[in-house]
């Protein structure tokens, strides 16, 4: 029987709660802080679903950051993509061997005209689609990994240059596409983050949407800011 039922019966429930609450409060506080400084322009960002386990987490983080957000399948026709920014989710497809499962992601990158953030499979696909290469990792990474920022750019601005990130990948970017720069690396993966030199195209190998990744909310806020700046142009 749960400790809490005992505690509740004995009228100690208020003593029993805090252990669980502290962990939840931590995210709540970080999201609340961002929420309060977010400019309340309605931004609409679509999460393109490539079948990832954390696609819905991306939706949740963007919703927490007060963005109008929707998850759409990756075969949605381009003309129905009406947004200020796109997140290409991670996914079960292994881009090295079954890129066709990535649906219309190529068209979105080429023609949507809005900032695109590729995550994991979305990031690998962006690289291979734009003339770089993605393939099996020599050492795949699952779970906790240390990532080092080499160039903070907009996406990591003001954040610590070494941070804990949560990973889950068998493949990785093995060659950058033309006009892309690498922004971060880990011991086993040279391209943990990349961006186009002039266009608002970003790729992250790790998962900023996962609770255990340090400053994930801040990275999403940075992407929202990028989308906002792009909208004003």
């Amino acid at each position: 029987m749960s400790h809490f039922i005992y505690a509740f019966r004995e009228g100690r429930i208020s003593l029993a709660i805090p252990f669980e609450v502290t962990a939840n409060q931590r995210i709540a506080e970080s999201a609340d802080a961002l929420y309060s400084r977010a400019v309340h322009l309605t931004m609409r960002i679509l999460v393109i679903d490539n079948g990832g386990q954390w696609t819905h987490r991306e939706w949740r983080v963007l919703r927490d950051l007060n963005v109008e957000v929707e998850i759409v399948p990756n075969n949605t026709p381009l003309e129905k993509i009406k947004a200020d920014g796109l997140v290409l989710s991670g996914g079960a497809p292994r881009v090295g061997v079954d890129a066709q499962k990535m649906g219309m992601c190529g068209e979105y990158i080429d023609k949507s005209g809005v900032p695109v953030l590729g995550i994991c499979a979305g990031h690998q696909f962006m690289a291979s689609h734009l003339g770089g290469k993605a393939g099996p990792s020599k050492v795949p990474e699952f779970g906790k990994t240390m990532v080092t920022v080499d160039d903070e750019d907009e996406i990591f601005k003001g954040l610590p240059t070494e941070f804990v990130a949560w990973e889950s990948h068998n493949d990785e970017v093995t060659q950058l596409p033309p006009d892309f720069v690498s922004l971060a690396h880990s011991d086993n993966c040279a391209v943990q983050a990349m961006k186009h030199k002039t266009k608002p195209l970003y790729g992250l190998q790790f998962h900023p949407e996962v609770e255990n990744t340090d400053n994930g909310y801040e990275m999403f806020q940075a992407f929202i800011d990028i989308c906002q700046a792009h909208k004003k142009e």
Partner: protein
Amino acid sequence: MFNADKFIEEQAKKLKTEVKGKAIIAASGGVDSTVCAALVSRAIGESLLAVYVDTGFMRKGETESVDKMLRRLGVNHIVVDASDEYFAALKGVIDPEKKRKIIGEKFIRVFEREAKKFGAEYLVQGTIAPDWIESGGGLRDTIKSHHNVGGLPADMDVKLVEPLRDLYKDEVRKVARALKIEVAEKQPFPGPALAIRVMGEPTRESVEIVREACAIVEEEIEKASAAGKMKLPWQYFAVLLPVKSVGVQGDVRAYGYTIAVRAVDSVDAMSAVYSKIPHDVLDTIASRIANKMKEKVNRVVYDITNKPPATIEWE
């Protein structure tokens, strides 16, 4: 940010128009289904019947305590003992996905039976986001079939209502606190229950071993956390492994099974880190388990993997 009061208000309106008649709810006594029961009960009152199924895989004292809790909550409910049916259906089954599918289907059959008796057309479930995400479908890979999603048979007789589909556990807890539900902070427990904490065939005997071990793990960890020695983990339990090893008990050779202790910290179950339990707490757990079940268990190990690469439960 997620606003629990707003959610409760929206759902109250939505449920009143969505559920036009009698409904039953699959109630396990956990946070998700209890929150659901409270929400739907507010919307349709006595037209809701909560059905708690005793599968035979429940934890120590669980059936009695859930019965009392639902009574205190004022939800119209019944307890169905279907344990013989479940043990019979799982005879010789060792594959985890098969276990989950069989249990999922059995749940629905029991609910259909009860729905018919009560005259209900709707089945309410406390499905939350990770349940359908991990169950897979379309592009998404099946990590494990949650009994309330991936285990559902195609030919169902009742209409499904799932008010918590887009929520994660931390958000459900916020709703539970707003509704002043006493199990708001209760640790998650899988629907297939102890059947998936026995690696191998769930028999009355093997389930009894893991039930006892789970009770010891829960007691010791709750005691240590109440004493301020550690933070209460997100989830903490025991798993019975089919691995036998040699031991020595009272100068006599022993050859028994292994219990794995698992405890993790998480916010939403979609990622997790193993809990850093103090060694003296692990020590007490290991001694108590091995002493209590000396003929059956003579080794206890602690699982130190995160999610990913592992999952929280073993099956």
